[in-house]
């Protein structure tokens, strides 16, 4: 039997398995269940979560087994250098695709701010339509009065920097500090692995997870205030739409990143990761840095400018 790790002239091909096809089925159940629920509630009927939850359960369980198996194979020395390089390419380009996903929403923000709202306000050759349909509409950002305020009740207040005072006004700033700090703490955790210092790893990685959770709590608080006190909702026109889709999907990615780091923390407690074999940790940390960079973009373009 050839040893895949030491003999680089031999390839390692993993064996057949039921995970992928069951995962695909689970995802299908989850999404169609969710779609049915959405349609039911949008039509004012009671929807059911059962199918979505079952689908999610299947997805989660399969992912657990799948990752567990990959980790186990690696520990048996089956994963050679080449496969590890493939993993690096894989996560790298996956993150690139995530960047493009956010690019779509940033693109929507810029288009709406710079082009759509100006046209609605009467600017340029296309502005005439706006003038005829909604003569009172004024092109300002954040849009505090929509073309049709009956359909889309505008927010009373926006999240843009000058509009807010008090601790809430600084919340995005705190969150920036928190995330940037967490990027640093996860980096320290990485060097801890390289030094072989397990206690340091557990501490700093745990700290990173904690910071992620604090970020999420603060963001939840921000959303609650937005909905309850500021009248800023998904339905308050283009400002609310872009605000929530950008911060919301970012928050969703922070959640994913936190879960990943949490798993890595648990793995660290179990004694996984060595100085030259810690791909899982590194992947999660790269993902975390990506989530961070997106936040900086959000902070600048959604809150400050």
């Amino acid at each position, binding site marked *: 039997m050839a040893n895949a790790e030491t003999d680089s002239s031999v390839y390692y091909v993993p064996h057949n398995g*039921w995970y992928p096809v069951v995962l695909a089925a689970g995802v299908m159940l989850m999404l169609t269940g969710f779609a049915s629920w959405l349609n039911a509630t949008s039509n004012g009927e009671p929807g059911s979560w059962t199918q979505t939850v079952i689908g999610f359960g299947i997805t989660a369980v399969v992912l657990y087994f799948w990752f567990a198996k990959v980790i186990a194979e690696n520990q048996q020395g089956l994963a050679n250098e080449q496969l590890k390089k493939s993993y690096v390419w894989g996560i790298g380009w996956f993150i690139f695709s995530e960047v493009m996903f956010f690019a*779509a929403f940033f693109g929507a923000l810029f288009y709406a701010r710079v082009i759509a709202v100006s046209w609605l306000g009467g600017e340029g050759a296309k502005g005439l339509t706006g003038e005829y349909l909604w003569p009172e509409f004024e092109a300002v950002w954040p849009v505090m009065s929509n073309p049709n305020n009956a359909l889309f009740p505008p927010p009373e207040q926006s999240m843009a920097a000058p509009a807010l005072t008090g601790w809430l006004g600084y919340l995005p700033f705190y969150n920036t500090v928190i995330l940037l700090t967490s990027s640093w703490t996860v980096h320290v955790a990485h060097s801890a692995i390289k030094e072989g210092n397990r206690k340091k790893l557990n501490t700093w990685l745990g700290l990173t997870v904690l910071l992620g959770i604090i970020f999420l709590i603060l963001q939840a608080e921000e959303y609650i205030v937005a909905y309850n006190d500021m009248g800023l909702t998904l339905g308050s026109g283009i400002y609310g739409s872009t605000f929530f*889709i950008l911060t919301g999907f970012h928050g969703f990615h922070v959640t994913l990143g936190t879960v990943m780091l949490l798993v890595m923390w648990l793995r660290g407690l179990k004694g996984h990761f060595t100085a030259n074999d810690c791909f899982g940790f590194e992947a999660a940390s790269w993902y975390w840095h990506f989530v961070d960079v997106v936040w900086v973009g959000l902070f600048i373009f959604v809150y400050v400018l």
Partner: protein
Amino acid sequence: MSEVIHADHHDDADHHGSGDHGPEKGLARWLFTTNHKDIGTLYLWFSFLMLLIGGVMALIVRTELFQPGLQFVNPEFFNQMTTNHGLIMVFGAIMPAFVGLANWLVPMQVGAPDMALPRMNNLSFWILPFAFGIMISTLFMEGGGPNFGWTFYAPLSTTYAPDSVTFFIFAVHMMGASSIMGSINIIATILNMRAPGMTLMKMPMFVWTWLITAYLLLAVMPVLAGVVTMMLFDIHFNTSFFDAAGGGDPVMFQHIFWFFGHPEVYIMILPAFGVVSHILPAFSRKPLFGYDSMVYAVASIAFLSFIVWAHHMFTVGMPLAGQLFFMYATMLIAIPTGVKVFNWTATMWKGSMTFETPMLFAIAFVVLFTIGGFSGLMLAIAPVDYQYHDTYFVVAHFHYVLVPGALFSIIAAVYFWFPKWTGKMYNETMGKLHFWLSFIGVNITFFPQHFSGLAGMPRRIPDYALQFADFNMLSSVGAFIFGFSQLVFLYVIIHGIRNGKPAEGRSWEGARGLEWTLPSPAPYHSFTKPPQVRDEEVHG
């Protein structure tokens, strides 16, 4: 359950690094496989099935358009047929077929045993049947399936959409996930698993075109996911991205969609360029002319494809500067495209050519794709696009690049590599029959559409003015010829697999490349040890 246990048991039973085990038995082989050839086969058969389903939808459309007036289907159903035809052909037939070809060919052509991430490879495939199951089931839902055209412009796809649009959105998400994982796999395989000595500029053209296509997919599939997500929010969560009443803009939908959509059309043609760049040299018995310039041309086309999207929107409303920019940028694409057509022609020049079925399809590709390129250039001229836009001229344009373009190249590839895949030769006479029927059918179908389009016949309408009757009747006849000739294809393949004569390792005299150094059929794991890349096998 027993199969599952069996699979796991099997796992523990042999832990060879090289995995020299053969395929599993029965259904389990296909459901659980991590083998690039099995997965390639799955992709190809799936895509063929989609081709037939999408084809039936097209024939329903052509039946209705055989004569002016409404006779066979009602307009609502007509709209669902055009929409689903487009979606199924683009996402279900053409794209998966190319991924199937990549699965079969890339590992063999770069000298690898398999794809870089074999389990994820299985997942990429198995998502698709579920996604298209959802898509097709929408047709049977209350309110009918998607009816807003394959471009699903808001607000047709939001405010005025049937309920089933929610399912459509999630189906698109699943297809996107499949494409992204597929691309990551292809990139990792190409960048990481090449045999020693195969430098980037020695890679076969098909590998090059797929590498670049994979980057296009990674860049734009997430944008598609983003735009359908915004639709979902507009529909169910009261946002106003595409609703001017809330400060949004339906035109914004089109910008984001076409930022995905134009690169998407190149996703469907770049691998075709690769295929043709293998077949023409093989049957001209000459190396590919201008290999380096072919690589640079593909790269520049890919780059340009990101900055031309608004040529789909000239009539929608855009400042003059925008119109000019997108017009000139679009025309620029004709330059690298011209380089490719020139190189293909030069490859055949003074070659000792023979005209087996794959070659016939490849030559037809060059000629007919170029016609599509020319009509594209006409459409790129902003002032005249005001007349052509949303007419049958556009339909003729994109069908010329997609049917005798992308689809012919896929068919050519299947004939060309068939002996390598199956170890058998197909029946040449039947293959040629398939070619001539397809060639004639495709031209009868789509050539007249140039004329009806120029004369002003709008697309996506179930009825039309009397003066277009003759051209439409011709189109419909051609469509039936083309459609039914694909059954000949099916026959040739099945007959070849079952009764074909055994094929040699190098099944075609002029074929070059690592895959031809393997026996036919190729072993289950292509190269268990990295092969030597010899110069005479370079540049197929």
